[in-house]
């Protein structure tokens, strides 16, 4: 455990240094959050008689939760791993007496938590005081949200590492880097909450892994998913986490046998 705690805490401290980036990111996200919120308000106002799957108040909370936790979404691979593979620095990674998958997973944990912590707290304070974000519907939802969020982090890291591993085949990784944000934001419910999707799409999205990143934790927070369903939510989430980890480990093993260390 000592190597992993060391690598997580070192990278965590490094990432906390990027306060200017966090501030800039925060401003951008407030603007985006406001725009998305206003779009929903316009939609809801134009169809006042429709039975909406989520109330406008719930949607607004959902939008701000999404902005607060945006950095936890695996919308990119680990830029550090990308740089290492490109430059050939991956050679040094292989010299460490640590399982490479676990080593990269530890890096991903830092990558997905440090910027989130920097942004989430001010974002939630702002959104709750000024933009109409509400706290969890009750204590049960708050606890359920926290439990599901642990799995969200675990899955996000598994996807981050998986994308890093694919760099061993593509080197530049640009194809996946361009594709990933669209896939993740759309299929997770980040862009549009899954209950607002057409009826035919919802069963598909509920089977795919991505809903466990956004839809599941946020709707537990809202109380829209009752706590009786928490077991199913967690089962779906952790089955996918295991699948993604097994897949990542398998690809890494194959990637290492065909690895070409760039340069030098």
């Amino acid at each position, binding site marked *: 455990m000592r190597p992993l705690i060391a*690598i997580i805490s070192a990278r965590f401290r*490094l990432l906390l*240094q990027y306060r200017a980036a966090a501030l800039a990111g925060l401003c951008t996200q407030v603007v985006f959050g406001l725009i998305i919120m206003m779009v929903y308000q316009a939609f809801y106002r134009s169809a006042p008689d429709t039975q909406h799957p989520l109330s406008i108040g719930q949607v607004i909370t959902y939008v701000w939760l999404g902005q607060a936790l945006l950095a936890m979404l695996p919308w990119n691979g680990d830029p550090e791993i990308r740089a290492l593979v490109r430059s050939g620095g991956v050679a040094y990674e292989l*010299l460490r*007496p640590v399982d490479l998958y676990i080593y990269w997973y530890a890096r991903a944990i830092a990558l997905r938590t440090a910027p989130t912590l920097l942004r989430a707290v001010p974002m939630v304070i702002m959104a709750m005081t000024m933009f109409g974000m509400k706290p969890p519907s009750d204590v049960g939802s708050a606890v359920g949200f926290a439990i599901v969020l642990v799995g969200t982090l675990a899955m996000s890291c598994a996807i981050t590492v998986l994308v890093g591993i694919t760099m061993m085949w593509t080197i530049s990784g640009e194809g996946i880097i361009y594709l990933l944000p669209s896939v993740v934001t759309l299929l997770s419910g980040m862009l549009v909450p899954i209950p607002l999707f057409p009826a035919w799409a919802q069963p598909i999205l509920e089977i795919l892994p991505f809903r466990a990143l956004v839809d599941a934790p946020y709707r537990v927070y809202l109380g829209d998913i009752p706590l009786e369903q928490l077991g199913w939510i967690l089962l779906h989430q952790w089955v996918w986490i295991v699948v993604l980890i097994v897949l990542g480990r398998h690809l890494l093993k194959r990637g290492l*046998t065909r*690895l*070409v*260390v760039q340069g030098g």
Partner: protein
Amino acid sequence: MSQIRVENLIKTYRVAERKAGLRGAFAGLVKRRHRTIEALAGISFELEAGELVGYIGPNGAGKSTTVKIMSGILVPDSGNCVVNGFVPWRDRTRFVSGIGVVFGQRTQLWWDLPVIESFELLSDIYRVPADDYRKRLGELEGMLDLGPFLDTPVRQLSLGQRMRCDLAASLLHNPPILFLDEPTIGLDAVSKLAVRDFVKQLNREQGTTVILTTHDMDDIEALCRRIIVIGSGRILSDGTLSDLRRRVSRERWLIVDLEADHSPPEVPEARIIQYEGHRVIYGFDPATLSAAELIATVSARTTVRDIFVENPPIEQIIARLYAKEA
């Protein structure tokens, strides 16, 4: 039992090729052409504990590939390799605690962290007990004179300082074997000397086995008793420096500084390699013509200001070896 045994290592790379220009780019979309490059074509050697070996060859000869296989980073297509009792790529995570590696062209330190924090992180990653780490750091700090910049972020170090830190970083877990891949590349003369002295001291005092790849023949002359020369993935020569000289050419050089306005006399058994200014260099084979005879002949026929006998520089020997085998 040898500490390192390498047997018949073969490694090929497949490289995608495309013709230059737009047309080539489009052709590449339809049909990729691959070319196979044989990086190692059967490399074998053995090393005993405590040896300091120079591993040299031109760019692309397979030096780095060999080092990367021996350190568990690359998997060879075929062949055996046992280092410290391990097959490096099979038991990688256990094996790597017993080796230190420095790639001169890249750093293993964290760019944005002060040097000392990188060291602490590495000691955590290698699970070095705190007392051992403090002791080891103290030793390395003294030997490499790291004190003045331990608190400096790595990105602000000069290349020479960085290399000294990288050397220390590779040795914090006290490995019995050290692989150095071009550790003096790009360094100024003072830093080169510091690195050489350190490697020599490490090998002599702590018995660390060192394998050194380099293009700098001064590194080799200063450090290595044994030299393995490789070219196009094959071992061309393996032995001491004098073995290598004997094998490639017995030629020695007589360097003569002439008095002004004198031209160098022709000597039948010796060839004039170079004549510039007042200096002439004769190449001769001591088996057919002794140095004494040559000196006598030359000084009888012209006025000599200074005279000395030398071995041809090792660069020439190596270049000739490559030419011979190509």
